[in-house]
């Protein structure tokens, strides 16, 4: 496939926690780039630093050293153009769908939230418009709007709730969707549904970039274009999905492949 423009880059990113004896390098000299329209899988076990790296790439945490750019703009502090652009053009999907949806809000209200924040509660872009967009997004992830819009999270299964979260991420038409272990808190059947939802999004919106974070190579094989394997804070392998899955170089990658094979 043809590679789009570079959307997000991280150069020499390092994150150190604590000092003295407790000093711990969570992310060590990581270079990473995401093109628009690309799906990048960030793979690593627990403690590999993948979530730390994600927070830095999204501008939510400040790295000890290193530079992040988004859409050509430097991400540095809350006032930088890159940070503002990230807030505007990126969306997050969290690991546990039930803690990422407010239990006291209906699906509709949760989904409308990003636009309400963006446009102010009583914007001219009135409720009709938001209404239409929620319906569109829900249908895209394979949920019937008529059935789900007025439900509360307590009435959803894990897979349904996570797809609602994915649909919410679509509401702002982001250039980048980041999904942090979106499938590890739900059962296999639900995992497949979420995977299908992500694939549908990529098909409907080919310009949208997706970063999927996971500990499991198996779940990302169908959607990832590129794979970056993180181990103990370092990138041990990166390349096209095909190369990494079929011709792994690092020992750790081979272990991951073995663990994900039947």
């Amino acid at each position, binding site marked *: 496939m043809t590679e789009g423009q570079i959307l997000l880059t991280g150069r020499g990113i390092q994150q150190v*926690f*604590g000092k003295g004896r*407790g000093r711990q390098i969570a992310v060590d000299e990581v270079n990473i780039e995401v093109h628009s329209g690309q799906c990048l899988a960030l793979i690593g076990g627990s*403690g590999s630093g993948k979530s730390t790296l994600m927070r830095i790439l999204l501008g939510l945490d400040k790295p000890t050293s290193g530079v992040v750019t988004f859409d050509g703009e430097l991400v540095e502090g809350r006032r930088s153009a890159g940070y503002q652009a990230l807030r505007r053009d990126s969306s997050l999907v969290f690991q546990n769908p039930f803690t990422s949806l407010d239990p006291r809000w209906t699906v509709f209200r949760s989904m409308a939230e990003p636009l309400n924040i963006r446009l102010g509660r009583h914007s001219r872009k009135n409720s009709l418009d938001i209404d239409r967009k929620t319906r569109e997004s829900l249908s895209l992830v394979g949920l019937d709007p008529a059935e789900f819009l007025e439900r509360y999270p307590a009435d959803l299964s894990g897979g349904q709730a996570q797809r609602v979260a994915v649909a919410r991420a679509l509401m702002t038409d982001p250039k980048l969707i980041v999904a942090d272990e979106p499938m590890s808190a739900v059962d296999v059947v639900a995992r497949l549904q979420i995977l299908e939802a992500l694939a549908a999004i990529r098909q409907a919106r080919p310009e949208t970039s997706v970063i999927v974070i996971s500990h499991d190579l198996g779940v990302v094989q169908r959607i990832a274009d590129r794979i970056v394997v993180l181990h103990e804070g370092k990138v041990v392998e990166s390349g096209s999905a095909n190369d990494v899955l079929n011709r792994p170089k690092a020992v750790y990658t081979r272990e991951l492949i073995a663990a994900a094979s039947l």
Partner: protein
Amino acid sequence: MRFIVRRFLLFVAALFVISVVIFAALRILPGDAPSVMAGLNAPPERVAMLRSQMGLDRPLAVQYSSWIDGLLHGDFGISLLTGRPIGSMVAARCSVTFPLIVLGLIVAIAIGLTFGVMAVLTTRPALRSGFHLLGLIGGAIPALWGGLLLILLFGRGTGLLGVLPSQGFPETGWDSFRTAFASLVLPALTVGVISGASLMRYTRSALGDIMHSGYIDQAMACGYTRRAAALKVGLRLTMPQLVSVVGLMFASMITGVMVVENLFALPGIGTGLVTDLGNRDLIAVQSELFMLAAFFLFIGFLVDLLHRFLDPRLRYAVQERA
């Protein structure tokens, strides 16, 4: 260790703040204290003499620092009304109040823990709602009324059974141990039952939550019965919470203690404080309030330390950054 030091510094800081608050509260007293004390038609010279005796003619900063200086040296000042040192006055009152609090606490813990655990362990719905009702009503009884009921039931003279003294404390204090103890039984029961009821509610909800946790499943899977798991594992796991609750109970009990002291005519801190306040004995009230506050802040300090010590998750918490 660092936690202990930090918490101790906080304790000292809180002491300082509360001393300033008490000091300030007594200075903005409406009605000039010396004139009140001297009486209605006292000559101005007498008022002025009282004023200088109380040290009220000095600048505020000097008054405050000499008060604190005295406190640090164990000198709490001299009561102008009785002419006795406040330190010994308070000590005498404490010898009534502290045993009362401790007895009340024992009653409360005995009732609260036992019934709380039983309420969790019982499977009979009737018993369950019985405990529920007990907790509700027990915690809603005003101390004054509770004391009154006990007097009506057991008080010597007026009571139906008339077995226990309901008024006063022996002049000789703890030298006549049996009478002294007997006169504390009804007051201690009053505050103990009321606090016990709320402790029972806490125990029931805290232990009830733990019983639904994986820790109990694991303990039972190792071979404990449900009962044993509740007693050996569940109670231990609720301990940090319960210690906090008992610590707070100290604070909530003191209102009841003061009330029953007055009701049962016990010469304790509560009765003393109310008398001194009525007499506008400024110096005495100031020192007594401060000592009470210091006592409760210290209890709070101890409870926090104990809480920390009882929960290894707090001691050894690995910093998680997943």
